[in-house]
C-alpha cells in the first residue's frame, strides 16, 4: 500500500489561507488504512482547521467528503457539483489522488494535505516501513524476498557495504541492514550461492529515470 503522512498543520493552513470555501477530500484507499487521509482523518483535520481559522478571525466553510478512491475518475466524478462550488480542494489522498483531481477538474485548485512517502506495510499497528521502490525490474527472486533497492541506503546489489554492524545500517541504527537480512534468509533457505553471483548493473530505465512510466493491461482496455 501507499503510505503518507499528514503535512504540518501550519503548512496546510498556509496553503489554503486565501480561500474561504474549502472542500476537504479524503480517500477511502491506502491512506485510510494508514490513518492519514480517510474519513476520520478528514473529520479531525476539518475541526483543526476550523479552530485555527476561528483563532485567526478568518471565516471558513468546509465541505467534507471521502470517495472510495480519489485516484479514479469515476469515484471523484460523484462530487462534481460540490467541487465546482468551492474555492479550493484540500486533498488528504496520496499524490496520485491530488493529480487525479487536478486533471479531472482543471479549473479547480487542489492542494495536498499529505506528504506521500512510500510503498510499504505495517510492521506493527500504526507503524509502516518502506518495502518496495517500484523500480520496475523486481529482484526479489534471488534476494530471498527482501528488497535492497528500497531498503539499502546505497541501493547495492552486491551488498552489504562495510557499514553493516550488528545487523543494523550505518545510516540509521534503528534500521535493519537489509543485506544482513538477505544473508540470513538465504542461509536459512540454503541459497547463499545467490550472493556469489556478480550482478549486472541495473537497467534504471524501468525506474524513475526515463520519464513517466505506464502500464497496460490489454484485455481490459475498451
Amino acid at each position, binding site marked *: 500500500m501507499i503510505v503518507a503522512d499528514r503535512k504540518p498543520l501550519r503548512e496546510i493552513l498556509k496553503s489554503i489561507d486565501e480561500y474561504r470555501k474549502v472542500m476537504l477530500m479524503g480517500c477511502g484507499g491506502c491512506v485510510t488504512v494508514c490513518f492519514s487521509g480517510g474519513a476520520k482523518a478528514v473529520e479531525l483535520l476539518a475541526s483543526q482547521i476550523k479552530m485555527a481559522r476561528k483563532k485567526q478571525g478568518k471565516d471558513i466553510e468546509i465541505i467534507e467528503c471521502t470517495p472510495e478512491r480519489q485516484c479514479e475518475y469515476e469515484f471523484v466524478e460523484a462530487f462534481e457539483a460540490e467541487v465546482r462550488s468551492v474555492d479550493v480542494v484540500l486533498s488528504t489522498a496520496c499524490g496520485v489522488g491530488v493529480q487525479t483531481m487536478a486533471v479531472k477538474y482543471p479549473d479547480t485548485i487542489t492542494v495536498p494535505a499529505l506528504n506521500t512517502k512510500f510503498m510499504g506495510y505495517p510492521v506493527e499497528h500504526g507503524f509502516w516501513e518502506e518495502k518496495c521502490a517500484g523500480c520496475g525490474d523486481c529482484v526479489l527472486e534471488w534476494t530471498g524476498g527482501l528488497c535492497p533497492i528500497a531498503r539499502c*541506503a*546505497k*541501493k*547495492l*546489489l*552486491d*551488498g*552489504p*557495504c*562495510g*557499514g*553493516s*554492524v*550488528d*545487523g543494523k545500517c*550505518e*545510516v540509521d541504527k534503528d534500521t535493519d*541492514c537489509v543485506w*544482513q537480512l538477505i*544473508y*540470513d534468509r538465504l542461509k536459512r533457505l540454503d541459497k*547463499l550461492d545467490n*550472493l*556469489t553471483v*556478480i*550482478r*549486472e*548493473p*541495473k537497467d*534504471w530505465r524501468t525506474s524513475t529515470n526515463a520519464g513517466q512510466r505506464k502500464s497496460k493491461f490489454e484485455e481490459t482496455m475498451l
Partner: protein
Amino acid sequence: MKSASRLERVLTAGRFAVTAELGPPQNANPEVIRKKAQHFLGNVDGVNITDNQTAIVRMSSIAAAAIAISCGVEPVVQMVCRDRNRIAMQSDILGAAALGVKNILCLSGDHQKFGNHPEAANVFDLGSVQLIAMVKKMRDAKQFLCGDPIKEHEPRLFIGAVENPFADPFEFRVVRLAKKIKAGADFIQTQCVFDVDKFAKWMELVVKDGLHKKAYILAGLTPVRSARALHYMKDEVAGMSVPDKLIKRMESAEDPKEEGIRICLEMIERVRNIEGVSGIHLMPIGWESITPVILERAGLLPCPQVRG
C-alpha cells in the same frame, strides 16, 4: 603488466608494498597537495587520494592526483559510486588515465548522511563490485560498459578494491572479497586494522580460499595520536573493531603520540607476518607527516627498486 604502475611492479616483484593516504583540501589550493606529497616522495609505492571521503566536499581526487603526479608521486585515485553515474565515472576514468593515473581504488562511498551535504541525492547507479567490473572491461575488453569499443588508448589501470574484515556478516566478508576479485580487483586494501586477531582470523579464511594468490592484500593501518581518536573510531565509525586493551594502553601512555607510533610499528610487524599479506596501507588521518617517520622506524625505507 596491466598498468605498469609502480604499485603493480612492486607487488608483482613480490616486494612488500606500502601505500599511504592523502586527503585533498577543502579548497582550491594546489600547494596543499604539493606540500603533502613531499611526505611521500620516495617513501611509498602509491599515494591514495580520497574521493570526498565521509561525503565532505574536497578537491577532486583526479585533480589532486594530477598535481601529485607533477610532484613525482604515484597516485591511487579513489573513486566512489555515491556521486556519479556510469557515464560520469567512465568519463572520469578516461580523464584520469589521460592525466597519467595508473591505479584506481573502487569503493561504494560513505553515505552522504555523514558529510556536509546530508540533503544531497545520492547516485549509486553502480555498486563497488560493478564499478570494478566496469574498469576491468574498459581495460581488458577495451569496451565501455555498454559494449561500445574503446578503439584506442584504453585506460590501463591497476584496479584496487576495499574490504572491511570487521563489518557484518563476518562470514560474508570473504565471499564479498572473492566477488570483488572475480570482478577484477588486482589489489585489496582493508579497513583500518586495530583488532589484529580478528584480522588474522579473516586472513585465514582468505588464504584458505586462495584469494591472496588472486589479488594482493594490503592491510590498512591507522596510527593514532590519542585515546580519544580510538574512542571515536570505536563509537562513531561503523564497522570498526577497536580492542579495549588498545584504548587502555593509549590512555595510560605518558607520550600518546609516541605510543601511537609504537602501536603502529608493532602492528606493521604483526601483519607482515600474517600469511597472504602483501603490504600495508597507512591511513594517518590528518597526520600525513608521520608516514615517513613510521616507515623509517619500521625499516621499510628506502622503497624497493623495481624496474620500470
